[in-house]
């Protein structure tokens, strides 16, 4: 055809928008470093990874994602304990010559990360601080940031890239975020954004297992953390188009357990409000979400063991008994 139709030849199939969520939980990294220090001489050198090493794996990954296609866009979001924030956006630098070089990207990421950590610490110190809200990172917050960013990209251009989210998670799940995380997962599912997850902590993450399962992403818990870059580039760098032809790791099972709304505990079996589907670990006289007063205590339907049902509705709770 002619020159006018040239732009339409940029098939968006090849172009990816990758939002990387980096776990910047100081408690996790410091304590895992301490644990590693204790057993430094022992035979477990690969179970933990210092944060500096992590950056050494992640920053090259961002660069290689950008190298895979010149239209690829990479966004880095830090997940803190008190806040979340955008660290780096490859779309921002734009055409400037300084924006392209690798050391510049690296130093910018590090600078912004430092700023983020300082800010995160200040927020924790604020007057209305809650005593150690816990040690889990705000996964729900960073997922929401990523989803919002992707929605903005969708709305800003006619031809949108293939979006996906990559969670690099170390700290354990915060059961108190259950509802928020599940909502984020379902909205990602609705917009067809796969959530890939790479868990670097000691335990598996039930949230991320569900997230990847529901959205069709890849869940992986690497065994050799010192070879993290290899995992990242072999498994998570593949774009959605190529995934059709590749055999990627599949989890052996998914932990579908939900958290109860009353104590934020992860439970196998519980009570579900018949009106608003809130989940509770024990009998209540009144549903705390919708205020339904229960004349008969058994109006809460007890569900158990309805495992591995396909997710048919936008928001479902499935109770899963591991054995």
């Amino acid at each position, binding site marked *: 055809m002619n020159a006018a139709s040239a732009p339409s030849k940029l098939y968006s199939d090849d172009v990816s928008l990758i939002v990387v969520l980096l776990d910047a939980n100081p*408690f996790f990294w410091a304590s895992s470093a301490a644990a590693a220090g204790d057993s430094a001489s022992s035979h477990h050198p690969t179970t933990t990874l210092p*944060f500096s090493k992590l950056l050494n794996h992640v920053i090259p990954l961002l660069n290689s994602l950008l190298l895979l296609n010149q239209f690829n866009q990479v966004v880095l979001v830090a997940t803190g304990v008190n806040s979340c924030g955008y660290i780096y956006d490859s779309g921002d630098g734009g055409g400037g010559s300084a924006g392209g070089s690798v050391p510049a990207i690296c130093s910018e990421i590090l600078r912004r990360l430092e700023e983020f950590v300082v800010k995160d610490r200040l927020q924790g110190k604020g007057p209305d601080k809650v005593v150690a809200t*816990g040690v889990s990172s705000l996964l729900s917050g960073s997922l929401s940031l990523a989803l919002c960013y992707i929605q903005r990209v969708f709305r800003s251009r006619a031809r949108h890239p293939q979006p996906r989210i990559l969670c690099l998670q170390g700290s354990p799940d915060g059961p108190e975020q259950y509802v928020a995380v599940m909502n984020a997962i379902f909205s990602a599912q609705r917009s067809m954004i796969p959530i890939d997850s790479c868990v670097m*902590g000691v335990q598996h993450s039930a949230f991320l297992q569900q997230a990847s399962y529901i959205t069709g992403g890849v869940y992986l818990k690497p065994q050799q953390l010192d*070879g993290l870059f290899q995992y990242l580039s*072999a498994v998570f760098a593949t774009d959605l188009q190529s995934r059709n032809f590749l055999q990627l*790791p*599949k989890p052996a099972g998914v932990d579908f357990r939900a958290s109860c709304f009353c104590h934020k505990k992860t439970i196998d079996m519980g009570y579900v409000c018949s009106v608003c589907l809130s989940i509770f670990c024990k009998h209540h006289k009144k549903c705390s979400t919708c205020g339904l007063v229960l004349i008969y205590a058994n109006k809460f339907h007890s569900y158990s063991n309805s495992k591995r049902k396909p997710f048919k509705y936008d928001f479902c709770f499935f109770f899963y008994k591991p054995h």
Partner: protein
Amino acid sequence: MAAISKVAKYKTTVKEPGIPGVLKMMEDVFTFTPHDPRSAMKLRVDFRNIKGHKFSKDGSKQALLNLTQDSEKGGGYIFEFSNFTERNDCRDFVGKVLGKFQALVSKQNDQPASEKSAVSLEQLSTIEMERRMKLLREDSELQKLHKELVIGNVLTESEFWATRKNLLDDDSDRTLKQRTGFKSAMLADIRPSTDGRTNKVTFSLTPEIIHQIFAEKPAVHRAFLNFVPSKMTEKDFWTKYCRAEYLHRTKNSVAAAAEAAEDEELAVFLKHDDILADEARRKIRRVDPTLDMEADLGDDYIHLPDHGILRDGSKETADSENDLARRTLAQDVNRHAAVVLEGRALDIELGDTRAVAEALARSKQESSADTLDENSNLERQERVSRMTEIEDLQAPHSLPYAPLCIKDPREYFDSQQVNALKALGSTGAGSKTIDYNLNTEEAYSYLMHQISEVKAQGLHNPIVQSEVACKVLSGLTQQISSTRYHLGKNPQESVLDRLPERTKDEIMLHWTSIQELLRHFWSSYPITTSYLYNKVLRLKSAMTDIYQKLKAIKDVQSDFRHQISLLVQPMLQALDAAFAHYDAEEHKHSKKNGAKPNGFVQ
């Protein structure tokens, strides 16, 4: 029943070519005489030895009929016919003969077994018999069950059918067949074919397509009624129509205009369809005034892949200067959808085009008479008036948001915050390996230190260490290959499919008979008559037989032993429950009746 004879080939297995000859069927015997008098394959078989018959589906490769002997011994007489109608004649004949035999056998068996002659000697009408036979013919599983239970003298014919009344009833209703509607494929799919060498373009019209054209394009329909056969022949009419279609398709508006100017009949096809336009206007007037399409606009899927259409008509500029119609794709799609939804109201055969056109016209008149109903108009007006907003009667519209309805926010958030903290305190401290008892300051300074370390040292070079990378890749490969063929991960895969064919059939057959027997068994309680008592006795002995067989299947050593026992276990349990009930009843009874020897007297 008269005898029939057909030319057929006799074979002992399906694959062999077979011996040509003549198959003759009489009331109680069938014979086969080969064309070649030297052949030894002469047959004369009594129908009493035939236990069932199978046949290949109509339209399959061969027209086969297999008259089976005892299922245990296997084997049978296979005949191949030259066509399906001959095969079907023989099949129906065999079906009738076999049905008669079965009825006879079961009747003979019934008489001594049951004292209540009214039940077993129930006179069956021939229609009823035929219906039963037809059901048995159509459903091979039912036939197997029938063979095992009725001919095996466990249930009587009437008992067997008593629970299947619905099948028999349904059958009569089924004759009222569902009418086929219009195809959902669009007319646009009927592409003209060119032969490539000449400039000839061929359209092929079937009565089906013609009917669809009439329904979708009222102008063509009207033209047909006006022109054919007074002005032109039907063939000329369709040639003209196809010509117009072709011009429209090639988007050659200049040529179309020229043709239309010359030929006024052809112009009819190219002009706007005024009947359609009228109808559309009428429909728009009927649209519910509460419909707000803009409200749905935000809910777009357009940004998702595979949504939306490539040609939405927005880029197709309308040629306003000539009055030839520029039908847009959207119009076509909508019109087609409307016609498909309206359905086909004609009961007329599609062969005669003229008749179809007239019938369609009649049905349209009727329906348009319906739509002019005053009531609907009134109702519409009422709705409009109800929906019309009168400004000074309205509540203020400035509600900025819909508040989230949590009945008592404090209860929801505060109490739970405390709970959450408590829960965290207990679980977090005891968390297995990582100790979080770290000072906040320490933790943050550690993180800052790590970042500045990277800043100072820069990135490692090389990033990939070959040894580690190799380990990682081989680990990944192993993981992927191990999860790939994991058993039971595929929900579509059934356990039964993995068993050997024979075992699978056996288990399925036992399962169906157990279901049937148990249904009869439990429905016989409480035992009030000696007839029921005898029935239960019969059922119990049949169930004991199956129980032994199931045990035998379960104990066979094979690779699938575990899976088979998982399948068989529930069946055994169901039977056990029945036996236990039987024993308990028996016990109770003997206690009650004390010394009475043979238990059951009314």
